[in-house]
């Protein structure tokens, strides 16, 4: 398998990009999901409806189309703004598109978890005079987080695999690297098998990480 030695590096580079996109989209998407989950739980009707509409769109439109729309949409928008053609950064567009999708699903998970935190917790916080901000950050969210983690973990694993979709906007992540290498080596079966193994290793590591996060969040709960 000497053919792989040079190309192997290319696949690994692709894997690194996939991981980078995953982590970036996870961070942005988590912040978005928590914010939107809080809006869905606490905000007044117009805001809640707006966020529900956003979730419905993400759920109803294929991920690939969302990625295309965000990529080409931001190209048009930035070009208009700048007054000259702007080549949108594939990494940024990819991260944004995946975070956009992730945030929608995560907001539902977070809302469900917030609702499961017993009312007495908020009441005790109010009785102590804590502000609603402190109550949310210190009391509700840490407990909701623990309840959200299983669903959240699933979404994260899906996100890792979804990074393969952004190969369509030209970012050389693992899938695109595989397609380039398989074209060059004319060994598509072996190359894609190698890619599958890499994805499997990455999701395995992610699963272990999530298990650790769950253990940590369980502290104090018998």
């Amino acid at each position, binding site marked *: 398998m000497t053919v792989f030695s040079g190309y192997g590096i290319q696949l690994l580079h692709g894997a690194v990009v996939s991981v980078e996109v995953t982590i970036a989209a996870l961070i942005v998407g988590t912040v978005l999901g928590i914010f939107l989950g809080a809006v869905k739980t606490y905000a007044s009707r117009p805001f809640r409806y707006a966020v529900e509409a956003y979730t419905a769109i993400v759920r109803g439109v294929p991920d690939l189309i969302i990625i295309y729309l965000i990529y080409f949409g931001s190209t048009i928008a930035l070009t208009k703004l700048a007054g000259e053609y702007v080549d949108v950064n594939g990494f940024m567009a990819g991260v944004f598109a995946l975070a956009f999708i992730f945030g929608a699903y995560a907001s539902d998970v977070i809302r469900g978890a917030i609702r499961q935190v*017993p009312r*007495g*917790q908020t*009441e*005790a*916080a*109010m*009785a*102590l*005079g*804590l*502000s609603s901000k*402190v109550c949310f950050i*210190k*009391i509700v969210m*840490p*407990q909701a987080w*623990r309840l959200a983690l299983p669903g959240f973990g699933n979404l994260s694993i899906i996100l890792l695999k979804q990074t393969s979709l952004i190969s369509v906007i030209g970012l050389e992540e693992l899938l695109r690297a595989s397609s380039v290498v398989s074209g060059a080596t004319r060994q598509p079966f072996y190359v894609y098998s190698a890619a599958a193994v890499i994805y499997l290793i990455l999701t395995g590591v992610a699963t272990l990480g999530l298990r650790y996060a769950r253990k940590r969040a369980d*502290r*104090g*709960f*018998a």
Partner: protein
Amino acid sequence: MTNNALANSAQAAGESGQSGQIKVVGIAKRFGPFQALSDVNLEIASGEKLVICGPSGSGKSTLIRCMNGIEGHDAGTVVVNGIPLDKVKANRDQIRREVGMVFQSFNLFPHMSVLENCLLAPMSVKGMSRRDAKDVAMHFLSRVRIAEQALKYPSQLSGGQQQRVAIARAMCMKPKILLLDEPTSALDPEMVKEVLDTMVGLAQGGMTMVCVTHEMGFAREVADRVIFMDRGSIVEEAPPEEFFGNPKTPRAQDFLAQILR
């Protein structure tokens, strides 16, 4: 009277006369079609120990929760420490700083250690330093005889211990008024006494205490006055000896006959 004298007397009223005092005037509360409180009037003096009892669903919790605005009232006024409990957020915040609450189901924060439970509000609400807040917390944890467990999580404690932590947590804010809503009714019988003893100890200070409870021994020992509620109204009020020994209304007689059985 000059403006200055007026201001001075108002200040004096705020600091001594009305601090620790609760005035409930004509409040009503409904949940949908259900009238949980109707025209309740109650004046609690500074330092008074008041026990509220009555059958399930009579509105005891609703009334006590109206005293710190955890439950909003639909009509009437509630004035605590001379501050009206209304929609004004600053008033509500001010009142909650000075009114502690202990719940039937403890409501400790499960993801925080006992000590952290006691530190959060003094640090976040009063802006105390961690070190000062810790001194206060350890003082009250010792007073409820649980200082050795300060680093444990609530789930590692027995019910009685958890409720004592909840009392210490409320006391760390040095409240002028302490509200307790059936603090012993979620406890196993053998743990009731340790919590009641703690409450008797607290009652020795000058703090105003309002306690929903059916523990007659506690009421007899500590209460200045007992009020009996039924169907959202105060039906009877009297000193404990008189109320338990010689209840006047048939509803109170029925109720006492039932809890004595």
